């Protein structure tokens, strides 16, 4: 990605809630599609919460859903749309900027791990 293609750092209200941030972060990790159970386990959330939040992200045009089945068991797969990926990258850039701004008292937290490689995701 060239600097000109890099999305501007901006808070995205759709992605901002931590659950949706987690879902988008997992879908932006590099896998083409991620299955419902894998996404639920990695995000550490319940089935109903994942269903609700992915529906919200789908309606916002950030997530694409593919339904299939293995035998009689239905399987649902998710992936980020190009728009969703761009919005996520912009939001992560905003988070990284915010992480670099050290307010008085909270600054210089040497114990806090530095954010890694997310800008590239």
């Amino acid at each position, binding site marked *: 990605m060239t600097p000109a293609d890099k999305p501007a750092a901006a808070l995205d209200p759709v992605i901002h809630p931590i659950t949706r941030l987690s879902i988008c972060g*997992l879908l932006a*990790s590099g896998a083409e599609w*991620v299955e419902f159970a*894998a996404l639920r386990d990695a995000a550490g959330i319940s089935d109903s919460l994942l269903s609700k939040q992915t529906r919200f992200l789908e309606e916002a045009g950030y997530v694409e859903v593919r339904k299939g089945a293995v035998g009689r068991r239905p399987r649902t797969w998710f992936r980020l749309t190009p728009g969703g990926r761009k919005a996520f990258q912009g939001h*992560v850039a905003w988070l990284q900027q915010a*992480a670099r701004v050290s307010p008085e008292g*909270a600054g210089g937290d040497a114990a806090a*791990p530095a954010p890694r490689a997310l800008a590239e*995701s």
Partner: protein
Amino acid sequence: MVMRDSTESVAELELLRAQRAQLASRLKTPWWYVAVMAFGWAVAFAMPIGSRYLTGATLGGSVLVIVVWILAQRALARVSGVDLGMGTRQYPSSRPWTFAIVAIIFAGDAAESLLVEHRLLAAAIAVGVLATVAGTGCWQGHLRAVRRDLEAGRVAA
């Protein structure tokens, strides 16, 4: 601009990193996947020898290798819940492994063909076995590199 505590942002970024690591850990290859891929490699390196004795061995072997590879990838995606797709060019750490795999295919095929031409069948079989082991090992290395890239979120757009 929304003001927020920087530690909150750091914590969110760290959470994303931990969740990616959890997702990547699902891609650990089961024994049957390694066995199926080794079978695919064995078929691939049996072709230079087989084509000497059987007509249509190259075409049949190629089709079998492709089918085995596609089925193995699909099965791994179903079991792990992580579908990498058919192309894995977007994972930068896996590129050296891809070059190594291509080199093994060409070197193994050329060496076997040469040995078969000189009627050194036992040596050709030994090269085929070595190439199968090397190819399977490189494919495992390739998947380890993909896992590392998933963990780090280091993926080309």
